[in-house]
């Protein structure tokens, strides 16, 4: 017993080192789980409000850019609205978009250069946000809600090497996968597109209808590089993301009104 205690005492520094490292790495692993609310992240009220204050100051410097972005989006929406108005008169079809509601929110903290980037937004359970909801920006998809606090939530950015998004290439392929490669916040990759398709640079990549998080047809990016290696069975596609993640400031959280129904159906099928 005595020699054991002496051993512990002799190597106490190393043992404390191992203990603290284990604790830290446990936190790393635990933090990558969805849905588990922990105290130590920016959904915490104190941390969230400090980040928001800092962002309030910073956002003054990009007011012009934000305004331009918004007016551009306004123009786009107006043109779409007029088009829709004309088609509504022709047929009374139910639009899938009406199944979705949007909660607008402001980004208070954002990172783009890590491998698992997290965005903090200033709305939470008080505004009706729950984990797993999709988040879209003024021109394209942004990410998915990870944790929800009372007044703040964290969002897993699309710029996360572990996130893959169900997508389609407009008018050409109706199912493919978009994933970020961790390198530049401007570009992402499209995976598993077989070589027999006839693609071109400039084709638009949008979300597919095979997911319950985003409405179908939300823009993701435009093909900017297209390589077909001789011996590969898949294209090597790089897309330029439509959203500029470095200057993102206003986002909308997508509420799928049919989600509970879809979930319960899937559950019945699985059982």
């Amino acid at each position, binding site marked *: 017993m005595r020699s054991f205690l002496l051993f512990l005492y002799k190597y106490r520094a190393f043992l404390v080192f191992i203990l603290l490292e284990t604790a830290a790495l446990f*936190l790393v692993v635990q933090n990558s789980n969805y849905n588990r609310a922990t105290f130590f992240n920016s959904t915490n009220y104190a941390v969230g409000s400090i980040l928001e204050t800092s962002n309030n100051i910073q956002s003054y410097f990009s007011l012009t850019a934000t305004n331009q972005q918004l007016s551009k989006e306004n123009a786009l929406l107006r043109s779409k609205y007029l088009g829709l108005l004309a088609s509504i008169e022709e047929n009374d079809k139910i639009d899938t978009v009406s199944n979705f509601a949007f909660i607008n929110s402001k980004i208070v903290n954002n990172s783009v250069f890590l491998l698992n980037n997290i965005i903090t937004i200033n709305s939470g359970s008080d505004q009706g946000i729950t984990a797993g909801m999709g988040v879209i920006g003024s021109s394209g998809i942004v990410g998915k809600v990870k944790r929800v606090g009372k007044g703040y939530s964290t969002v897993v950015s699309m710029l996360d090497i572990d996130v893959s998004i169900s997508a389609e290439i407009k008018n050409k392929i109706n199912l493919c996968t978009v994933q970020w490669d961790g390198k530049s916040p401007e570009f992402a990759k499209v995976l598993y597109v077989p070589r027999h398709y006839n693609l071109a640079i400039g084709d638009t990549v949008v979300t597919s209808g095979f997911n319950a998080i985003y409405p179908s047809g939300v823009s993701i990016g435009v093909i900017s590089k297209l390589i077909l290696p001789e011996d590969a069975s898949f294209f090597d596609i790089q897309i330029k993301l439509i959203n500029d993640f470095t200057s993102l400031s206003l986002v909308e959280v997508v509420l799928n009104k049919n989600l509970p129904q879809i979930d319960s159906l899937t559950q019945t099928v699985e059982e």
Partner: protein
Amino acid sequence: MNKDNIIKLITFFGYLLFQVFLFNKMVLLGKGFAFVYVGFLLTFQFELGIIAAMLIGFATGVSVDIFSNTLGIHASASVLLMYLRPTLFKLFTPHGGYPIGSKPTPTIMGFSWFSTYSLILIFLHHSWLFIVEAGGFHLFLFTIQKIILSTFFTFSTIIIIQYLFSKKTGGR
């Protein structure tokens, strides 16, 4: 709590503020990060016990993590840094040992001593940090580029901060 500890506490919040609101947003070429809070850990006095040092490292790392949503990553790298610090002190003991009660800063120990000491520790800290962030050794080349660029970026900012602030308080 004596005067020295109060100064250290204020310094801690100073570093945290700089790290979270300024340096977290400054990234060179998408790869070079400046983790200036490492400067806070590097300049603790020589006599600081290793266990206390690791606990301080853990607390500092967690504080940075909370604000950057990277829970555990900075904490584990900082604990490693604090664990290795005394070993480096032993390796680089100058003739006649260290002056009692002094700190490892460039103004006290000289630029060349400080840069050898800090470059090694910053390099190890960053290597650990980026490998844990990548979750292993895939993306290896990209991780190496990040480590090297960030080591020099962090080192330069720490040196500048040391020369700017360390005259009166002996290490900000």
